């Protein structure tokens, strides 16, 4: 089995730098590393885990319809995502908004 590439995720609020296999859900990375991101429903409908992706937005897995609808209903800027819905396909800088 070929080792998958590793990506680095930086959680700005806690200055926490974590390495994980490419494609790992951000939620799993945050949980594992104990990052200060609050998850509510973990299914993309409460908005508690809303983050700003300050770097690597294009390396986030694309939003599915439900997340898109949700963020659109909040008129969220384009760099906002729901952390529970993102997989890290590349290096990311994540700022938890605590909104």
């Amino acid at each position, binding site marked *: 089995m070929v080792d998958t590439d590793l990506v680095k995720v930086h959680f700005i609020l806690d200055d926490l730098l974590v390495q994980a296999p490419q494609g790992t859900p951000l939620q799993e990375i945050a949980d594992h590393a104990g990052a200060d991101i609050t998850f509510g429903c973990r299914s993309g409908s*409460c908005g508690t885990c809303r983050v700003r992706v300050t770097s690597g937005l294009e390396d986030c897995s694309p939003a599915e319809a439900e997340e898109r609808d949700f963020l659109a209903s909040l008129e969220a800027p384009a760099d906002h995502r729901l952390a529970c819905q993102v997989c890290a396909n590349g290096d990311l800088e994540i700022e938890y908004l605590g909104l």
Partner: protein
Amino acid sequence: MNTLASLLLERPLLLDGGMGTQILARKPTVDDFGGLQLDGCMEIFNERRPEWIRNIHAAYFDAGADAVETNTFGANDVVLGEFAIAHRTEEINLLAARLAKDVARSYDRTRFVVGSVGPGTKLITLGHIDPDSLFESYRAQVRGLLLGGADSILIETCQDLGQVKTTVRAARAAMADTKIQRPLWVQVTVEATGTLLLGTEIFAALTAIEMLGVDALGLNCGTGPDEMYAPLATLAEASPFLLSCLPNAGMPVNESGNLIYPQTPEIFAEKVAAAAKTFGLNIVGGCCGTTPAHIRALAQRMANVGLTRRTPSMERSVSSLYQGVTLRQEPRPLIVGERTNANGSKAFRDALAKDDFDALVGIAKDQQREASHMLDVCVAYVGRDEVRDMDEFLKRLVTQCTLPLMIDSTEPAVIERALKLAPGKCVVNSINFEDGEGRARQILDLCRTYGAAVVALTIDEQGMAQTLEQKLVVAQRLVDLVIGEYKFNPSDLIIDPLTFTLGSGDEAYRRSAIATLDAIREIKARHPGVLTMLGVSNVSFGLKPAVRHVVNALMLYHGVQAGLDLAIFNSGKVIPVARIPEDQRRATEDLLFDRRSEGYDPLKVLLEIFGNGKVADMTASSLEAMDPSARLRQDILDGEKQRVLGDVDEALKFHDPLHLINEVLLGAMKEVGERFGAGTMQLPFVLESAETMKAAISRIEPLLPKESSTSKGRIVLATVKGDVHDIGKNLVDIILSNNGYEVANLGIKQPVEAIMAAVDQAPTLAVGLSGLLVKSTAIMRENLISMAEKGYTLPVILGGAALTRDFVEQECRPLYKGPVRYAEDAFEGLRILDASRSGDLAELEVPVQASKITVLRRGEASVPLTPEGRSSWVKRSDTIPEPPFWGVKEVAHGPEDLFEFLDTFVVIRNRWSFTQGQLSDADFDQVIKGKAEPLLASWKQRLLAEPLLRPRARYGYFPVQAAGDVLKVFAPDRSQILSEFVLPRQAAGRRLCIADYFEPVGSSRFDVMGLQLVTLGRETAEHAAKLYAANQYSDYFSFHGLATELTEAYAELIHSQIRRELGIHQRDAKQLRQLFSQGYQGSRYSFGYPACPDLEGNVPILELLQGAELDVEITEGFQMVPEYTTSALVTWHPQARYFAV
């Protein structure tokens, strides 16, 4: 005479090939486009780079093309509007046509210019744009093309029938505007799927477009020549117009990111020329991927291809967006569903009165299922805006229903609106001569403009024709006008000779059915081709439903004998005549044919026969034709609980009960599970299927031989100690028990001793443990240890919201000797059990991977604690709000108040699990609009009507001060400490603790803390339990989810009241959706959630608010009962948000 027309009489016309790729090959820069704003606007090159376009046209002419298409594919208001130059539409088209015409004139032989009109970027039938805007958009384009000298107008690459209809109208209007008449050609795009983009079959497209009287109809784009053979064959056989074919150079293949059209000029030319011979094509050319080289090759091949004469014949039909339906059905008649009619159906009228258009669509779909061929649509309702209602209804209906429509209205404005919205060929119902011919002509003009057939009633200035003679006089007059003067195809005239009721006993109508049946016979004989229709059920108006069914059925039968072609009828109520008992049939026929004698009145006899009102429900539908066990399977898949019992009884006549359960029913449930797993079926539908399954099994079970067992094994299922959450476990119960397992559902809060005792009671296949709380995951772990100690080894399956696969694999599995598995949902549980039975459990193994997540750097805690032990991130505030009172207040609310704060998004998507899965956007939208939203609407209505909720709340304000992690709560007079909340603090990061949002001890000021407790009352929990006990799974699931979210809504309501009372409501978000995402100042924390996970905090809240007053109690595990209850601690602090410790 247009010389283009004369050329087409002699030989096939050769058109050009692709334009876009030829332009792009010149690698246009932003400067070529004329700035960023126009970047991508190909039509601007007519003005900015005319030499390019000229050269492309010349290259095609040089290659041998007889005609080129103008570079105006997207030159309409809508597309140009995207580049902010919509106002230049006409000008750009004029320019483009003139440019092409200049090139054409430079050749010796006569060459032509075809004005290209593309499909635009908005689909009218999906509501992306309204008909009138689209109409004007194309009208301006075609005007420009005509004025610029185009020799014909080609409406091409059509994907949406609605767009074709609108654009043809617009082109005709433009010809009237400019007084320039040119041939009008239409080309549709058939995708590789065999239909137009929106699902339109080619015959449906032909049926609708045939009515528009264009000059040529053909195909372009979408596929290569090979794939066009099947639709071309249909058109060649039936289309009365010239036939065109402009394929792509094969189906594109993706080569390293570039779309490549594979067919070489030679291959392409050979195939197109072969098609031209086979089908008698009149116009050929190329589309995407074709070049001047392709056209050159085609010119050579076509040199020897002459015209092949076709003798097309087309079965007169009507069409929807999707399909064509022939007007002469075999067997007759064509059934027009009558229940989408405000005059014909109470359910329809009621839903209309409530503006519940989705329910109206539901009624339409019912009729579709019951095998109507067409729907009569009438929204006339006194006091309502009929045009608006037609608009709202049809917008939804045309995409959701596959049946053609009969537009039933007497108002021209309503008819016109409907004909604009319906993409297919409709029938207008109806015209008559009651007020002379004026209105009839007005409606016939609309039919001609929009391409509709018409129903004509035998009514004239004298009134409704009752006798045969009167009926025939009016029929003749109708034929003279509609066919003679308006030149309709005879079969687009449908005469309704009227039916009157025989149910009143009125002497004047005694012979009316005879006159009607004779009229049908005579009209068919005198006016060949003209069709007839009856509103059959009028014949029994005023009688009891049971009598009506029989009278209607026999009237229909005799109508068909007389030659009736169409019948407006409730298709679900068609009784096969052979099933009508002899005495009923005789009396009914005597009534219809007025056979009476002294002392014998057939109406009286009928009423006597039906006096006791019993008549078998003898409905016929397409399902009837199925084998009973196939029908049973379909019932399960469709969740048809109402129908399943009858089908079980029927199936039992042919099959043995064990076979039905094991093969048919379980097989169907297996498919349900597979569909759920594949993301094409959603949980609410799964539950309907399970409910149907349950009903079917209960019916069969008593018939099973005593010694036989259908059980696949016994499962012990429980929610673990300290956890009151029921729903997840119950879903598992539903799925397992309806897939052949026997489930011992122990209930909630089950200590491990009780679980083990249950296992000991009977042979058990496996244990399933469930729990929602984070704490429950630890309990499951402890349970496994206990079970291991006692020597159990049967499989244990764990599930629940807070559980993760990793936790089960890594923390739980090593503790227990037998198999321990995580199940993400009920179906995974089922798969595990099935695998366990068949000994394949190991195959389900997912190799456990060591976590590869590593922390590379952990920064210092971002902020240090203050000397008082508080997060220095939280700032103290200058002013503290003043509450309107100190202490506690009780309030009560109605369901409607809660609805205002209901997060419908969460109810539908989360609580009810309506998630998109693998559904397309359109299918998902249909699920939401057709199922989820109506479900919510009906529940709301029930909750308003029935006492299922009793929302009450207590809330209040207390003076507080914080000492580190402890929040001290004082009596309103500050004389004593009433209670203390010990709150957890984040170990890292901002080091937050809820206490930090309040003034510290030692401050001269007291802070204000809000507390709130809301409950829907015991009634709600009892109702949920009742639904579950009654196996009403889907009601149970939806009620539970809605009640849970209404509890949240209530908390949101009280919280918003608190903010208002504290005067911090100015920052409340205006939109509910945002409000639900903490769009306000301050925060509301509930115990058991991430900022304060321990439920113990519920104890002081209940004490301080005297929860007992609301009948709210607390369990040993510190959860509140009744279930639909929630409490919270409220802070006004601007920095307070949710966080996790």
